């Protein structure tokens, strides 16, 4: 496992044909405005998608965990997107929002609009951004949902029975019992999702191309289109470094959770 990692690192400090070590690849990445735009977009997408997913997944998990009649069916429905690859999710999304897509067809047929609304294109980048967010939230929220639901189901009933004795309100039960005991699950979900978000690729690539450059997309572009394996390796290593920082951040920041659940 270490071998490709070391190889990638070596690639970033060497150049094709040139002997010896060089910082040229790193320099060319940092002086390329596309890199900074890609970094900004990746951070922005992560920053918007993750909170939305966690909030939505938490609400869904709480809802399903109340175990109403037929809740199993709801679980199945929510988890369907888990089986989808990012590419198929993106294609489904494209079929809905493209100029000739379902949404525009419905609106045109209802007479609400007379010309299709464009969701994709170089002059509607913010719309592209929100379609990507929507697609990612739809596609990847089930993962967070499953983890949180499992966490909720592990919380013992006795806590809530005790809370009832003390006359806790529902809100108090949520903030003083559910949320603290859910911290470990939240931590895992956040860690997994944030790491995946930094590798976001298929959805953005298919829906926005390089209108919205992202780190993984630029890695791919450098490797396949520009055939600059050294620069592509720099991008790869940068994604890896950011991932390590995020993991460290979550593990330190949410450290209290583990102790609490063990006590």
């Amino acid at each position, binding site marked *: 496992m270490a071998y490709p990692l070391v190889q990638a690192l070596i690639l970033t400090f060497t150049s094709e044909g040139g002997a010896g070590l060089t910082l040229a690849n790193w320099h060319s990445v940092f002086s390329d405005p596309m890199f900074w735009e890609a970094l900004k977009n990746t951070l922005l997408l992560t920053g918007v998608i993750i909170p939305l997913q966690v909030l939505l997944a938490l609400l869904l998990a709480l809802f399903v965990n109340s175990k109403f009649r037929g809740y199993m069916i709801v679980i199945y429905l929510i988890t369907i997107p888990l089986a989808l690859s990012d590419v198929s999710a993106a294609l489904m999304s494209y079929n809905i929002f493209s*100029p000739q897509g379902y949404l525009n067809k419905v609106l045109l047929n209802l007479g609400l609009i*007379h010309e*299709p609304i464009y969701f994709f*294109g*170089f002059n*509607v980048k913010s719309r592209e951004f929100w379609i990507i967010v929507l697609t990612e939230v739809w596609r990847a929220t089930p993962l967070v949902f499953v983890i949180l639901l499992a966490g909720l189901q592990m919380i013992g009933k006795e806590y809530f029975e005790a809370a009832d004795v003390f006359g806790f309100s529902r809100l108090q039960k949520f903030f003083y019992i559910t949320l603290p005991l859910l911290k470990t699950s939240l931590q895992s979900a956040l860690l997994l999702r944030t790491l995946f978000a930094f590798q976001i690729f298929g959805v953005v690539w298919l829906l*926005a191309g*390089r209108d919205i450059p992202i780190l993984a997309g630029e890695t791919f572009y450098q490797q396949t289109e*520009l*055939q600059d394996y050294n620069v592509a390796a720099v991008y790869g290593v940068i994604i890896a470094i950011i991932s390590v920082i995020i993991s460290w951040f979550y593990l330190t920041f949410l450290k209290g959770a583990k102790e609490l659940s063990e006590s």
Partner: protein
Amino acid sequence: MIGKLLKAFKAETGIDVEFVALTYNEMLSRMIAEQKSGKVTLSLVGDLHGGLDVMASRGLLQEIKDISLPNRTFIPTLEKYSVIKGKKVYVPWMQATYVMVVNKEAYKYLPKGLTVDDIKKPTKKWTYDALLAWAKNLKEKTGSPKFGLPMAPKGLFHRFLHGYLLPSFTGYQAKKFNSPGSVKAWEYMRKLIKYTQPASSTWAAMSEPLSKGEVWLAWDHTARIKPAIVQSPEKFDVIPVPKGPAGRGYIIVAVGLAVPKGAPAKEEAYKLIEYLTRPDIQISVLQNVGFFPTVKEAAGAIPAGALKVLAQGVVAQSSAPDSIVAMIPNLGKLGGKFTNTYREVFRRVVLQKMDIKKEIARAGKYLQKLFKEAGAPIQ
């Protein structure tokens, strides 16, 4: 396809041909090695013009003036390029190019003074300014932009920039990248983009948007528009590209057949070249793999339908008297960086409205560096 052709060739002549599929780099290094050791095994090579050009300048190819190919007229533009440094080194085998497609609906919105005939022929009136006026009309009179370009990362938009726009405005693909003509070209793109369908940046091939009617006028590689035309040949015309102040710039992807120096089976190779350039074989290549004939007799004999529509446009384009033919430069691994430079300048200058002169000065220098690094003459 090649297997089928070679089998038929053997049945006719009794000559057994072994086909070896090699990448360009593999083929070049093998030919160099065979030449050096004096033990040549390849008798016939087929490659793009750019590759054959390199082989010829390294002295790896035989002059093939003595080949006899009766009853076929090669397209003069292609014939001209098969003579490298005064020596006839290959026979044009197949060609592909990038053309424009028009949904016949769009003819209703032609700008004043421009006729369908002007475009199809093409005449001097079919210019980039006329295209701009047409695209503007289409947008304003139909309510949405109807001109499209394959601008997605996997699309071939960069070929439009380096092989069509710049040669038409400057006469060259890269040589005059930093020039007043180039400034005009980029200013033109700033205007054209206003009437270009914005979803272009998500399209890798124009076939689907054409089929769906999302665009009525588009530019793309022949292979990437073919499906739309096959689906409804009566709906579309394939037309030559417009001309700019310097001429009608377009790319020809020429594939040729050449004989390496010291080939062990030269006579048999000649026979195979004769076979592969027969009009009926050329038509079956077009039907199966979408590469166009290089002999006029074949172009005239294509049965009616989608392929005929396509071939008419291709032949009209390559026969235009004001042609500036651009061959995709053979820069090896640097090819991606070459095309990316055009896309980057487009992004910065047209989409982000950065200063044209500053950007083309910087990119022009970079292009020169790329050609130098690749050891290719700047075009």
